């Protein structure tokens, strides 16, 4: 039920809002390295993910790439 509520919330975020139609020449700010969802250092993000994977029970949500490990 909680999952359904969350999914509904996400759908409503996109269906109920209007977004500006940003033209390609208006995307200079979005192209900055500091504007990337994964942060400015991919390797550091991977290290962090690995630490959290080995110390916490929750997983997922950061993409489907990457391998597994024993991490005990």
């Amino acid at each position, binding site marked *: 039920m909680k999952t359904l509520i969350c999914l509904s919330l996400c759908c409503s975020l996109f269906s109920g809002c209007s977004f500006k139609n940003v033209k*390609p020449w208006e995307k200079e*700010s979005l192209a900055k390295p500091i*504007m990337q969802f994964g942060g400015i250092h991919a390797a550091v993000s991977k290290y*962090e993910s690995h630490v959290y994977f080995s110390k916490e029970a*929750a997983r997922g*949500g950061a993409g*489907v790439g990457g391998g*597994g490990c024993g991490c005990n």
Partner: protein
Amino acid sequence: MQLNRLSLITILALSTHASLHAENYVTVDFLQYNENDNRVAVSAPSVSAAYDIGTDFSVRADFVNDAITGATPVWQSDALTDGGSGASGRVVNNTGDYVYKNQSFNDVRNAWSIGATRRFENRDELNVGINYSRESDYDSKSISLDYMHYTDASHNRSINFGISGAFDEILVKSIANGGKYRDDDDDKSYYKDDDYDSESGASQKETSNTINLQLGVNQILNETSSLKVDAFAVLSAGYLTNPHQRVVRNYNSAFQSLGDESRPDKRTAYGVALKHIVLLGDSVSLNSNYRYYTDDWQINSHTLEENAYYEASKNLTLGAGVRYYTQTAASFYNASKEHFTDEIYASSDQRLSQFNALTYKGSVDYKISDNLSYNLGAEFYEQSTGLKATMITTGAKYHF
């Protein structure tokens, strides 16, 4: 100048907001991770490289080596030996009781991954990846595939679907077998032959498989902000028990014993992840993340993370962040040695307990030249279980 401006516009028009930084590079990074109380220490150098083949293809490769030493807390007999190394030492004191204390170990993990991206005429992207990770008692192979599709001509909204499959092999060092491995496949010489026990059969090589699914939407909100929403599912089956963890059963009875922990052989998890990024002024970005996770082991989790980056100058970028994590305990978890009797599933692994965690972090990125940059980062991680850890990262990136 005008040409540069036109080039930038052309690049932006062709690019996606999710992959604007496709580039040729080589990075070398190093992680030093240390836990308090002489627990785990990890030194992990890594190398990554990516190369664009024209505008429609790119390839990438990564390698990381983890050298792990230290100890992890597990239930153990309180017997003391003069040799100090378990079965080989002479027992000098044994009250028959159990203590939850650190057990020493060391291991080396090598992980490789390679991937390729194909961009289509409308700039949709198909990514494929292969990963391989090997430890002395754990082998993991995985393959991933994800597709990103633009839903509008201005490339302001994209949807993406990803799927991966991981296929793991685990060598189980069962306490019922005197702590020896059994390797069912003699050809795999990397398994520890010294620990191989072909007669008892009490220990075994196990397997587990995990399917990871993710469906998401990436929406540019305006010239300075974007939103990303993903729903995900993680479906695991097979041997999901931690082969290093123990539980005490029937404590204070004639049948009290120390045995292997046991977890269900299936785990189904779902969740939602939201990411928002916004540029404040010309030089500060705020990256806000939230993840909700739930699974059928009754673990529910919330993760909140806020990262900020500041372009202090053309060459210097500073970063700071904080992360809050909380989870409920698995239904079969209990920390007490007096709790378990004959339950099918039982674990005292702290990672399945109820706890909160906080991470504080900071970073410095310095561009030495147009092609070369250097970064240094520090993180402090603290759990309500008492675990504390520091993480120092450093690396260099060369563009070409």
